[in-house]
């Protein structure tokens, strides 16, 4: 690992994103627009108070998964990845460079989304609001690292987009948004314990309902972060310098 090369890669990825203002706009604004829509749909019901925090976990995760997997796939298909593999750049430097770049974007996205949810949509937060930002950020990093990994198994943009329903939707369904996890059939409850998004949603729901739940929130967040680290390691293993 080499910090200079990692940061050079982060800078390069952010410069690429900067040349694409429309993507930045979509990344930053779409979560807030959808949160606003949700709050409006559920006006005068308590539903937004329950679903709102979960949405704060979903948007950064899905958005970063898509953006990262497609960016990385383009890197593979354009031949730039092959060039990098002939150069003195470590595989972990490349993956961490990407993670830092999209992590930086995720911070902005999370600040805007949380601010919008709390101040505009009136989401009530019992605990510390900054914990919402922290969980949303870790969640975005998870999306980034899973996206990096997914791109290794996709040959085309079409396939990468299909990974979204395959990898992401089950986590959404089992994450406790539709039915609280402890009321699911035992098998599904057990499976959901092993899905990172369940823990992210749990963390966010704890922040918004329990003023004394900081310990739980941090523990759940660490679990999500552990999944992200595992995805980076797997990503580095699946990223090969040589082709057969």
């Amino acid at each position, binding site marked *: 690992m080499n910090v200079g*090369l990692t940061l050079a890669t982060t800078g390069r990825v952010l410069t690429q994103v900067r040349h694409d203002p429309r993507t930045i706009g979509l990344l930053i604004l779409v979560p807030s627009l959808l949160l606003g829509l949700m709050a409006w749909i559920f006006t005068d019901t308590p539903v937004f108070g329950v679903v709102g925090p979960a949405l704060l976990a979903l948007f950064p995760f899905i958005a970063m998964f898509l953006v990262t997997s497609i960016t990385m796939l383009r890197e593979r298909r*354009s031949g730039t990845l092959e*060039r990098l*593999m*002939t*150069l*003195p750049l470590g595989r972990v430097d490349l993956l961490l460079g990407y993670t830092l770049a999209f992590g930086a974007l995720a911070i902005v996205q999370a600040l805007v989304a949380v601010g919008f949810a709390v101040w505009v949509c009136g989401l009530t937060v019992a605990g510390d609001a900054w914990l919402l930002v922290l969980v949303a950020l870790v969640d975005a990093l998870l999306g980034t690292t899973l996206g990096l990994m997914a791109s290794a198994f996709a040959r085309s943009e079409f396939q990468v987009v299909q990974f979204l329903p395959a990898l992401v939707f089950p986590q959404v369904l089992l994450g406790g948004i539709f039915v609280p996890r402890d009321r699911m059939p035992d098998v599904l409850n057990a499976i959901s314990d092993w899905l990172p998004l369940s823990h992210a949603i749990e963390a966010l729901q704890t922040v918004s309902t329990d003023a004394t739940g900081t310990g739980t929130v941090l523990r759940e967040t660490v679990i999500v972060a552990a999944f992200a680290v595992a995805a980076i390691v797997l990503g580095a293993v699946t990223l090969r310098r*040589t082709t057969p």
Partner: protein
Amino acid sequence: MMNSAIEAVDLVVHRGRRDVLRTVSATVPAGSVVGLLGPSGSGKTTLMRAVVGVQRITSGTLTVLGLPAGHPRLRSRIGYVSQTPSVYDDLTIRQNLTYFGRIVGAPAADVDRVLDEVDLREEQRALVRDLSGGQQNRVSLAAALLGSPELLVLDEPTVGLDPVLRRDLWDLFRVLASRGTTLLVSSHVMDEAQRCDRILLLRDGALLADVTPAELLESTGTSDADDAFLALVGSAR
């Protein structure tokens, strides 16, 4: 002192069920310009990818700059240009070169040097996606020149270039060779073969000839490289 920059002994590469290279033995002398010629599908790109360490070798040995191909210490000593321009099309020329320069640890002034060498200084602030195909190829070449690697492996670097640019690039290759750089250049254009020190002729994954341009013409009794190529490829059928 190393005499050969690349030495392949009984090199075999299988990709899936296909024998892409079948016991190829060849040497590329240090400080020379060696042309890698052959019909498409003959294994040129696979041989070049093996030299730069991204193609797994099935059997045989491939020694590059005194180390086995793919050795980590080779990564800062070889410049590689693939057939399609492998640079970021959503960055400017200069941003691309600055990034690759940092990766290879080239001095900051190298960016300006290589911009001059491929004659793209005027366009340096343009996004790569707005450039012509030939210009994009030259950006890709410029990235490989950063850090002045000892060995340049160039896969069809002159495709899509007009005759003037092609001549300029071959002049640049000669200058680089005169400074001691070794160049392995693949090409479809037979008149470029005349500008090489030696020619490796591949067909169906086997080495047909390892000759000088003059020997190629003499042995085939032809007067230009196109005819010589047709004669050699034809006689081997």
